[in-house]
């Protein structure tokens, strides 16, 4: 007896109840599609993060204040710290930019907009963060010294506050203080979880005057002379800061290189991806249980048919095969449609993230869906195959 004939019986069994087969297929479809799609979203988020960090350059160190530990005091990072980092004791440090940041509400005319990052720094900041100017100019060291109220805005801020007009030369109110817009930065795009263009940069002095006050800096961004000099620069920076902050045991600041930042952020997005994938895997599992459920119903409903087949000489293996093939066809068909849905779905931007399809996840989801049919179909199928012919025939 040939497999083809058994498969034909299975197909006839499935088409006999199209509604039920369709709904069961839907369960697997949703499972497979969500596995593929959510992995693609996670992957998209992590590659966006990687890109934005890679944009920082390989010779950058970021120094930020450490949170206070019990029993130790934290000295704030100051402009003087930043100035001390450049000198004869640190030959590998090219320059160090002090950075303050705050949230600010900006207004122009009747429009108002909350800028999520209002940054105060010096002109080197643009260099270290790979920020290019799209319109107008950046501010200069002279602007910083004179504490001029000038600002360079990100692309999102420009479209929100100045729709249809050229922002350069306009005066906008930041927390009710007038700033002159002198430039607009080129758009960088979303970095996964936050909009990198939702920002504005003003001279450090001006920002401290107007917004943050003269307390602790948010960051000091250090640029080493080259990528190779980075470890030396880090050592020199550590020595200088330890001396200035009188660190004995644990430092009250931390230094992150671009590599470390990348590792930390990648780990976060990986966790995020795993989380998404597990949710999707659960829905695939539920789909599989749906198959068991439907196949059990099918077997119970068709006990008499199974009895007839056995009475005319169907061996156990052919009954087992028929119901296994039915279950596998359900899940394979669902898997196929799920792959299609997942691939199509990943072409759209989801929650601000452009999903990046992982080919192995497509293969995996499809293979798993086929195995789900075999696995979850095997119990009902073996139940059908084990039925005694006379008992099956007597079943009403």
């Amino acid at each position, binding site marked *: 007896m040939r497999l083809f004939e058994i498969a034909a019986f299975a197909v006839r069994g499935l088409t006999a109840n199209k509604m039920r087969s369709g709904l069961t297929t839907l369960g697997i479809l949703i499972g497979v599609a969500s596995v593929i799609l959510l992995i693609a979203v996670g992957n998209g988020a992590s590659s966006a993060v990687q890109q934005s960090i890679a944009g920082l350059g390989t010779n950058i160190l970021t120094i930020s204040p450490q949170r206070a530990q019990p029993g130790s005091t934290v000295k704030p990072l100051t402009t003087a710290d930043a100035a001390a980092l450049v000198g004869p004791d640190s030959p590998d440090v090219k320059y160090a930019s002090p950075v303050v940041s705050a949230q600010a509400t900006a207004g122009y005319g009747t429009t108002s907009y909350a800028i999520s990052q209002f940054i105060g720094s010096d002109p080197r900041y643009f260099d270290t963060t790979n920020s290019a100017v799209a319109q107008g100019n950046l501010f200069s060291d002279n602007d910083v010294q004179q504490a001029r109220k000038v600002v360079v805005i990100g692309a999102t801020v420009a479209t929100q506050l100045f729709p249809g007009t050229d922002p350069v030369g306009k005066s906008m109110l930041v927390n009710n203080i007038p700033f002159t817009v002198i430039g607009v930065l080129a758009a960088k795009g979303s970095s996964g979880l936050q909009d990198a263009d939702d920002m504005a940069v003003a001279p450090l002095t001006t920002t401290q005057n107007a917004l943050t006050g003269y307390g602790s800096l948010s960051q000091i961004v250090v640029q080493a002379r080259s990528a190779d000099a980075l470890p030396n620069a880090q050592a020199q920076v550590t020595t200088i800061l330890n001396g200035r902050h009188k660190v004995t045991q644990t430092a009250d600041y931390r230094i992150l290189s671009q590599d470390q930042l990348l590792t930390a952020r990648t780990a976060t997005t990986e966790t995020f991806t795993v989380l998404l994938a597990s949710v999707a895997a659960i829905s695939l599992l539920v789909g599989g249980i749906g198959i068991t459920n439907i196949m059990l119903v099918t077997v119970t409903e068709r006990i*008499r048919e199974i*009895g*007839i087949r056995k*009475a005319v000489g169907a*061996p*156990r293996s052919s009954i087992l095969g028929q119901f296994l093939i039915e279950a596998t066809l359900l899940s394979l068909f669902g898997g196929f449609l799920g792959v299609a849905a997942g691939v199509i779905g990943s072409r759209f931007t989801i929650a601000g993230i452009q999903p990046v399809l992982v080919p192995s996840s497509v293969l995996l989801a499809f293979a798993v869906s086929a195995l789900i049919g075999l696995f979850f179909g095997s119990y009902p199928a073996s139940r059908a195959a084990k039925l005694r012919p006379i008992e099956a025939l007597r079943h009403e």
Partner: protein
Amino acid sequence: MSPVIEVRNLRKTYGAGDTAVHALRGLDLTVEKGEYIAIMGASGSGKSTLLNILGCLDVPSSGKYLLDGIDTGEFDEEQLSLLRNRKIGFVFQSFNLVPRTTALANVELPLVYAGVRRAQRRERALAALDLVGLKERTHHRPNELSGGQQQRVAIARALVTSPAIVLADEPTGNLDTESSREVLGILDRLNASGRTVVLITHEDEVAAHAMRTVRVVDGSVQTGGVAGVLV
């Protein structure tokens, strides 16, 4: 030449202990090739149990059953399914056709499990349907056929594999007089062409078609009837 069916001291017990039901109590029966036998008996006498065992749908608790000289007692379920496929054609009172499946496909079913090739399968199934007078109904599904037609499809299915024996469990039990006459006519013709037929009935008119009547009382054979006796 050995008989087609040889049953010795056949017992079948359902349940155990005090609640045990003895359906067959040491039954003996021999059916020679080409015979046409009617098994009669009150309901609960064990005649259906006997036929199910003869059809290898059920297994006896003890005793010997030789089918075509083969001892079925040593067979496992896999070999029994082979036996059902090759040696036995079974006709049920309630037809038992596979639903939503054409008459032709129903008749082809045993041949599919026997591994017969598609073209030959079709040819033999059509010949069997022709024999029961349903050549015009090959693509009808069971719900599009009358009771008599369904039973004729079932008979075509039973004989398509050229089995050693055709077993029929009250084949006219669910049919009207006209359909019964047709079905019995077909069984008569089968027997006339040399096929061994064993049927169960509780109607004397049906039993009259057989050469011999076997009466089952309380799980054993009472007397051998006389061929062709009309009551």
